[in-house]
């Protein structure tokens, strides 16, 4: 365990305390910090987007200043400091391996043990005269407040869920309103999660799309390029539509899609997508291969959208593990069956009929 380095780009000098120098940070984000957030949202370097764990000084904190605890995911750290312009506080950054507060707490990495250890190592008891630590409410799954008190003497006070509510929470004498304690999942909160889901799906698409294009040309009687440009290109359009419906539209439209299970929501989005594509493809239904092709997509598109929607449970803020397991028990077999049947029929439409 070492002290946080002064050489990190966001550190602006240091302040002297009874126990040595502590890196100073400001609540103003630089362009590099904003760019870093955007990149992390797109999955670029997200697993290495960290700050060094330990104690930091926001502004000019004294012995009475509040101690705010966060994770060493840089986005968590930046959301915290930018919420506190003109304030003076100690920021204790726990080592969560670069994972955000809620996920790290769910694993116990943002936990009782790390909190106590990091506080002791940072000599908090010599830096502040009070014995209070303000933690984000969503660290609750990992931190047992009563144990922290017993083992370290520090009292854990759960602050608001969102860092942006901290000024109001601090000014109200460390009191949170019911709204601050309730985790929402607004359209904006859902939308920012779309890129990272999309990026992980499109990695697969880079392999699958060319395969369909290639196979589209091989079968049939019309010759390679005629087949590839007709069936292959339509396959690419159908797959990209399925990804858009499952990984973009379903998360954004989540509350308005019917059903409680995410797979059902995705299924509905997929069926609507398949119907729209059918309208555009109607000119191709004069022969049996054309009709079989559409049937194949009517199976594959909903299978893909249901699967992608189901995967969004991990990003959502309200799904329980018991519920996800119950949903998957029927959804996964159906998704596999529909996907496999659709692929089988599509290959049949190209090579058999």
């Amino acid at each position, binding site marked *: 365990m070492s002290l946080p380095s002064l050489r990190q780009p966001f550190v602006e000098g240091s302040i002297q305390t009874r126990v040595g120098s502590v890196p100073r940070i400001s609540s103003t984000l630089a362009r590099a910090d904003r760019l870093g957030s955007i990149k992390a949202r797109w999955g670029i370097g*997200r697993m290495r987007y960290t700050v060094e764990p330990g104690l930091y000084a926001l502004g000019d904190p004294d012995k009475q200043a509040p101690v705010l605890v966060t994770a060493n995911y840089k986005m968590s750290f930046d959301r915290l400091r930018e919420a506190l312009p003109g304030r003076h506080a100690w920021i204790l950054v726990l080592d969560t391996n670069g994972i955000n507060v809620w996920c790290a707490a769910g694993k116990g990495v943002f936990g009782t043990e790390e909190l106590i250890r990091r506080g002791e190592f940072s000599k908090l008891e010599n830096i502040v005269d009070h014995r209070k630590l303000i933690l984000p*409410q969503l660290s609750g799954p990992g*931190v047992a407040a009563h144990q922290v008190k017993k083992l370290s003497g520090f009292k854990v006070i759960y602050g608001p869920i969102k860092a942006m509510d901290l000024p109001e929470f601090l000014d109200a004498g460390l009191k949170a309103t019911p709204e601050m304690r309730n985790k929402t999942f607004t359209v904006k909160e859902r939308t920012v999660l779309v890129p990272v889901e999309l990026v992980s799906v499109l990695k697969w698409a880079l392999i699958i799309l060319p395969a369909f294009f290639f196979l589209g040309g091989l079968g049939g009687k019309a010759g390679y390029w005629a087949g590839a440009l007709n069936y292959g290109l339509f396959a690419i359009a159908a797959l990209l539509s399925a990804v858009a419906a499952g990984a973009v539209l379903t998360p954004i439209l989540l*509350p308005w899609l019917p059903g409680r*299970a995410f797979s059902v929501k995705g299924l509905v989005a997929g069926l609507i997508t398949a119907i729209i594509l059918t309208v555009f493809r109607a000119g191709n239904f004069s022969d049996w291969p054309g009709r079989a092709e559409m049937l194949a997509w009517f199976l594959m598109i909903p299978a893909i959208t249901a699967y992608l929607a189901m995967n969004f449970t991990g990003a959502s803020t309200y799904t*329980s593990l018991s519920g*996800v397991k119950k949903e998957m028990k029927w959804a996964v077999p159906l998704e596999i069956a529909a996907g496999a049947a659709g692929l089988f029929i599509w290959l049949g439409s190209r090579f058999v009929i």
Partner: protein
Amino acid sequence: MGNLIYLKDVVTLELDQEKCVGCGMCLVVCPHEVLSMNNGHAGIKNRDLCMECGACARNCPTEAVTVQAGVGCAAAVINAALGRNASSCCCVLEPDDDAGSGSIKSGVFNPPKCC
């Protein structure tokens, strides 16, 4: 818009009112207003809003609240079923970052994809 509700009647949350001392910590940490306080004891008000995050149970000094805590993440369930090294949460290896590079630090855990 109010709280979004997931599947009904699936949640494993239990509250033993005999053990409850009424400290209210479970109400503080719950992110979905699942619990309420009546006559000095906590009670379950909105069971179907519970996401089994486990914050209430973790912060209950008398073990009055229990729940099979976990993260409701399909990718994690699939990984666990496939026996991949990512069973407890939504942890999917991102090929970009980890494949072959051996960057999984000291084998503590894999980074989550979906949280």
